[in-house]
């Protein structure tokens, strides 16, 4: 299990990296944390002729609290985000989701940008980005381009990033103070790819739900935003019956595929179960905060 031959570049700046991508295009693969790419290369399932290693671009590692949200340089390690007091304070949903990304050794290398660009539909970060209406900035030969989460994720392992573009930043709008949140997932073992996972945010005003967000992983070719289910919640007072209705709406919103670990039917069912539980937990956090 050893990788095939490739050409290796280790640019020191974003400009150099973008130039390399411009030169090699489809033949080049960006190496960030490498925790998904390198296993594929070791197995020779991925054989990029050119690897552009962005790990030496120090300017791409940062966490900033700006414009009502968190901005992450693409090379920010997942572990750094997970341990950041800023992330814990501004977006605990993201922190909770990050804790379930692989294991600590993986998160020590894995990056925020890499996970999003890899677009594994079971990757926690993708659903959080989707649920929070996040966006990314891509830099290409023509300059910067902002892509919303909705437009970013195309299908399995595929984003709308062009081969000549480098994802340089991800932005997660922070839920308002007092919002409740929950991240829940079912995985075969701790740290495994989720069979289904859900992140929720609830904002209450005067006893009714003012905003609700539901993002899911493991239930289709991309992360899923359960917009219909969210609409059913907004304007309603929270109740068990409401959660149940939301769970049903979530089940309608997803079109999972089965694999050897879980059937499509199971994933759909569990997505609803988890959504219900996550909403319940979100509410209890709203009440704790109040």
């Amino acid at each position, binding site marked *: 299990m050893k990788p095939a031959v490739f050409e290796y570049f280790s640019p020191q700046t974003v400009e150099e990296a973008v130039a390399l991508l411009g030169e090699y295009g489809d033949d080049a693969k960006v190496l960030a944390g490498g925790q998904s790419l390198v296993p594929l290369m070791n197995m020779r*399932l991925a054989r990029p002729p050119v690897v552009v290693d962005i790990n030496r671009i120090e300017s791409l590692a940062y966490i900033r609290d700006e414009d009502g949200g968190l901005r992450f340089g693409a090379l920010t390690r997942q572990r750094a985000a997970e341990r950041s007091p800023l992330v814990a304070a501004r977006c605990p949903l993201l922190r909770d989701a990050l804790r379930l990304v692989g294991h600590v050794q993986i998160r020590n290398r894995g990056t925020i940008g890499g996970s999003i660009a890899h677009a594994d539909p079971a990757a926690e970060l993708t659903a959080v980005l989707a649920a929070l209406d996040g966006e990314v900035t891509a830099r290409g030969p023509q300059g910067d381009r902002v892509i919303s989460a909705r437009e970013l994720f195309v299908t399995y392992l595929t984003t709308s990033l062009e081969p000549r573009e480098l994802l340089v930043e991800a932005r997660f709008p922070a839920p308002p103070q007092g919002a409740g949140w929950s991240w829940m997932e079912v995985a075969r073992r701790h740290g495994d790819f989720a069979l289904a996972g859900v992140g929720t945010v609830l904002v209450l005003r005067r006893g009714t739900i003012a905003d609700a967000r539901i993002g899911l992983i493991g239930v289709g070719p991309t992360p899923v935003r359960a917009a219909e289910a969210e609409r059913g919640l907004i304007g309603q007072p929270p109740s068990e019956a409401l959660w149940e209705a939301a769970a049903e709406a979530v089940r309608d919103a997803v079109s999972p595929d089965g694999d050897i670990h879980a059937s499509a039917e199971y994933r759909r069912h569990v997505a609803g179960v988890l959504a219900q539980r996550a909403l319940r937990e979100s509410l209890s956090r709203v009440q704790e905060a109040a």
Partner: protein
Amino acid sequence: MKLEGTNSLPAPVETVWKTINDPEALRRCTPGLKELKEVGPDTYQATLQIGVAAVKGTYAGTLAITDKRAPAHYKISLDGSGGAGFMKGEGIVDLEPHGDGTLLKWAGDIQIGGLIAGVGQRMLGGIGKMLIGQFFKCLEDYVGGGT
């Protein structure tokens, strides 16, 4: 891996039949097709690069159309092998008039073997479905564009 589906195409059965037998349409719509060389009647040598993102395998093999009953039915088979393993697919295509257009019903069985099967099982089914979906969507556009 058994898959099936139905597509509704905005053209009469005869037009659709011609399209799905047209090497140019096959060339344009078969996902990842790098090369398609006619080596006999309804028999092609094909090279495909199939996969998603960095995970792509190149397969060389044969594409053949058999059991033809114009303008309503044929069987399309594809087999290829490469470093990532092998693939073998068979699909039955049936055309039915449907209003002004045509209903294209397909049912296929794809076998994937070797490295990719043992490692990629989590997404393989979904990706296979997606690629076949792309193929028929493309045909739909092709037929649509042709009328």
